[in-house]
């Protein structure tokens, strides 16, 4: 039904020309008219800050919102490893087509060709842009840019700034934004929690915001709304994401009519520090650049109690190197993660809780010396030591996979517009580009591609014909009704008077989602999740204990709204995972695997993006399919042997 709802608006023409043709065919907004348009940008991470700054430079009036106390604190700041770009500075055979091909293949043929090709095309511009802003990328002695190779790629196309690439890219975007704030082109609202999107006559026209300092709820109007609100990994409670990352803005957009695509595509990062106890609040990622030099193993004998340094090579099971001789420790994330799970599940795990595998640097230290290792990975080794109290220069680290990134998100067309006209989604909160699995160093690339080089063009195509059509007036009931609903919903938590903390319910939810919709999924498990989640949600709504007031800072109250939305999202994830009777990328259904335990795709029946529409409360999402057609690559089974 309603096929028009999922028109991806992919331009005609050969793949390599689509973006240029499209840019030429888009309506332009005359420079003097740009200031007549007000654009709302929610989120100041890489995607949001770059979009807000670029739109303001073009002349649009921009209002930017973040719940953080400063735009610089967005979760993008935590990215460590690097950013990809098809510069071919290393002369090792990289090209736009190769980056495109690797991304499509890495995504297990579940992404849209045209978007991915454009991403690869603009990737080179990103590096130019960031270098011009003063991002201190790593350099060779001659002063030119350095590169490293990164999980899943056989060329060196990753640019980096020590182990703090996300921080430096975000500071570049934040500073560009700050310049526009100072110039009066961007009105920046910090500590502002966006709790709803306002839609009138089918078009997005504003947002509802709760001031986190005063608790005041009010609406903001705009000609278009851009969501850049990041991913939803925290639905698992424990993840590598910052504590406050959440799905609320995207979820509320879903409830207003925006399709949510591929919610079950989540990524598990293979190199994190294994979880400790109940009190653990988050998991810490160790950049996967470590896999370039570290060797992953477990003892061959399950009962081998010797300390790792004393176990000889013959008694070590280098499972990735043995199973995948050509890629070895550099297989893509999903493959590395699943293999770690297999060895741990079979009882071969290491560490006090037997929930990890070794990542060993002894060979590199012997080959290159401790100093060389320190220069390359010093900050990561320090971080490991600080958290575990163990010295990784003396004994191998212990690692285990953790939830890290969500490929699913708001469905967007080629213009990055959701199914609600005027509502755009950029960065991790949309579903584009990475298919069922994201390659390392490609999220930063996508966030900045969207924000600097795609949205600023495509939004013009939406706005141009709307000149002289202001959003509804401030006193339109559509705003007051949305404000009242948000204020009610927020206050309701204080009236529950329950017995258990919001965190308790979040932890319980995380356990269900991790057990049944995590690294491996099965029909039985997903059905169990689908019966447990609604029950937990009801209990949460009836029993959450939130103290304090709605008229000022109240962290538990903020969290209650977020966990409530996670509860609904979790159900949709399980629904999606259950319906997708195949394994692809990060989605591994135990029923669908090869005899060797590799993912078994079903292209005949599932070569589509699954986009869900909100059907009203407490009912399963209504599924629409966007077929994926591959004209420039032939889907093959990924093999990293």
């Amino acid at each position, binding site marked *: 039904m309603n096929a028009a709802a999922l028109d991806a608006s992919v331009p005609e023409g050969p793949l390599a020309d689509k973006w240029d043709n499209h840019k030429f065919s888009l309506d332009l907004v005359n420079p003097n008219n740009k200031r007549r348009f007000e654009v709302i940008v929610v989120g100041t991470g890489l995607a949001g800050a770059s979009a807000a700054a670029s739109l303001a430079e073009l002349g649009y009036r921009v209002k930017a919102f973040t719940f953080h106390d400063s735009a610089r604190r967005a979760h993008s700041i935590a990215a460590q490893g690097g950013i990809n770009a098809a510069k071919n500075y290393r002369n090792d055979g990289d090209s736009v087509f190769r980056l495109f091909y690797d991304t499509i293949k890495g995504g297990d043929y579940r992404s849209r060709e045209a978007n991915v090709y454009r991403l690869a095309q603009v990737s080179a511009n990103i590096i130019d842009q960031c270098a*011009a802003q003063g991002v201190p990328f790593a350099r060779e002695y001659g002063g030119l840019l350095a590169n490293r190779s990164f999980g899943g790629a056989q060329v060196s196309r990753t640019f980096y700034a020590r182990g703090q690439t996300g921080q430096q890219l975000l500071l570049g975007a934040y500073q560009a934004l700050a310049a526009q704030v100072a110039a009066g082109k961007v009105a920046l609202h910090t500590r502002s929690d966006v709790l709803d999107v306002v839609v009138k006559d089918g078009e997005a026209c504003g947002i509802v915001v709760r001031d986190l300092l005063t608790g005041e709820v009010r609406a903001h109007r705009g000609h278009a709304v851009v969501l850049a609100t990041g991913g939803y990994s925290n639905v698992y409670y424990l993840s590598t994401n910052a504590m406050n990352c959440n799905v609320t803005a995207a979820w509320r957009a879903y409830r207003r009519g925006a399709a949510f695509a591929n919610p079950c595509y989540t990524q598990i990062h293979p190199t994190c520090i294994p979880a400790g106890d109940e009190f653990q609040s988050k998991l810490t990622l160790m950049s996967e650049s470590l896999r370039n030099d570290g060797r992953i193993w477990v003892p061959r004998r399950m009962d081998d109690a010797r300390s790792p340094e004393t176990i000889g090579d013959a008694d070590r099971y280098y499972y990735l190197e043995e199973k995948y001789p050509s890629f070895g420790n550099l297989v893509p994330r999903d493959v590395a993660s699943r293999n770690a799970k297999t060895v741990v599940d079979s009882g071969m795990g290491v560490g006090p809780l037997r929930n990890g595998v070794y990542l060993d640097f002894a060979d590199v230290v012997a080959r290159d010396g401790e100093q060389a290792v320190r220069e390359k990975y010093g900050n990561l080794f320090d971080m490991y030591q600080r958290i575990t109290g163990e010295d990784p220069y003396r004994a191998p680290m212990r690692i285990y996979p953790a939830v890290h990134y969500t490929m699913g998100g708001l469905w967007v067309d080629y213009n990055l517009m959701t199914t609600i006209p005027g509502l755009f989604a950029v960065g991790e909160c949309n579903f584009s580009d990475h298919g069922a699995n994201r390659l390392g160093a490609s999220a930063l690339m996508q966030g900045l591609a969207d924000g600097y080089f795609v949205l600023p063009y495509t939004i013009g195509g939406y706005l141009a014909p709307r000149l002289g059509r202001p959003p509804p007036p401030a006193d339109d009931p559509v705003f007051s009704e949305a404000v009242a609903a948000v204020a009610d919903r927020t206050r309701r938590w204080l009236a529950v008077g329950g017995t258990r903390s919001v965190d308790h319910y979040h932890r319980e939810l995380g356990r269900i989602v991790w057990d049944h919709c995590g690294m491996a999924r099965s029909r039985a498990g997903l059905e169990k999740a689908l019966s447990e989640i609604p029950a937990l949600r009801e209990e949460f709504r009836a029993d959450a204990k939130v103290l304090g007031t709605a008229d000022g800072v109240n962290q538990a109250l903020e969290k209650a709204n977020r966990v409530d939305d996670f509860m609904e999202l979790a159900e949709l994830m399980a629904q999606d995972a259950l319906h997708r009777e195949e394994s692809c990328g990060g989605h591994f259904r135990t029923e669908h695997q090869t005899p060797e335990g590799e993912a078994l795709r079903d292209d005949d029946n599932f070569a589509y993006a699954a986009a869900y529409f909100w059907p009203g409360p407490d009912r399963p999402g209504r599924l629409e399919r966007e077929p994926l057609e591959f004209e420039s690559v032939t889907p093959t089974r990924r093999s990293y042997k």
Partner: protein
Amino acid sequence: MSGTLDLRLRIWRQDGPGAPGAFQDVEARGIPADASFLEMLDIVNERLLDEGIEPVTFAHDCREGICGTCGVMINGRAHGPERATATCQLHMRSFADGDEIVVEPFRAASFPVVKDLMVDRQAFDRIIEAGGYISAPTGSAPDANETPVPKEAADFAMDAAACIGCGACVAACPNSAAQLFTAAKLGHLNVLPQGQPERWRRTEALVETMEEFFGSCTNHGECREACPKEISLDFIALLNRDYLKAKVKNRRLAARA
């Protein structure tokens, strides 16, 4: 390492910016030594909630020392006793069983208390907005390798750019000066070839905006002791040198115009 600690906490409670504040004494028993400092506060908060007492408000997000959101005074020291460690990276194994721990917000006139341990550090954003950037509108950049950056300059810039904007330097300073934060931004941008055109303008604007909000530096060096990223005092020396030069150069440029 494992085991648990029994601690006595004195935690600052304050309802809002204007409200009076006071210490609340909390017995924290059985705290796992492997917990981080913020996880310890999580545990305490769950217990307070059980007793019907509103949990302690504290700022945090990444919990891995990079976002700069966290930061409290722990026994009078910004970010606590460990060198080069943000509050969120501090672990309870740094404390001993039976310790009394005093937990307060960062204290500085320009960082008003928002609630309990949470403060407002917007003054830092004002400094960056004054010119802590290189103007490079999107789309205008040349190929990145057209402007080589000597490795030493890139490394120097990166050392400075590592600042996470946490404000511990201000909290640690007897004068509540923000020299280290400001110098870190100038150190990042002023040595790069891309940063030269705006160097003098930027320096003057940043320093003068800083002075509007913060106290003056009298070279105590406490900032560096507290800094979780070990930003070097050498950057303050660069700030001072560049500021003197900037005054002269900007005056000349203005006279010529």
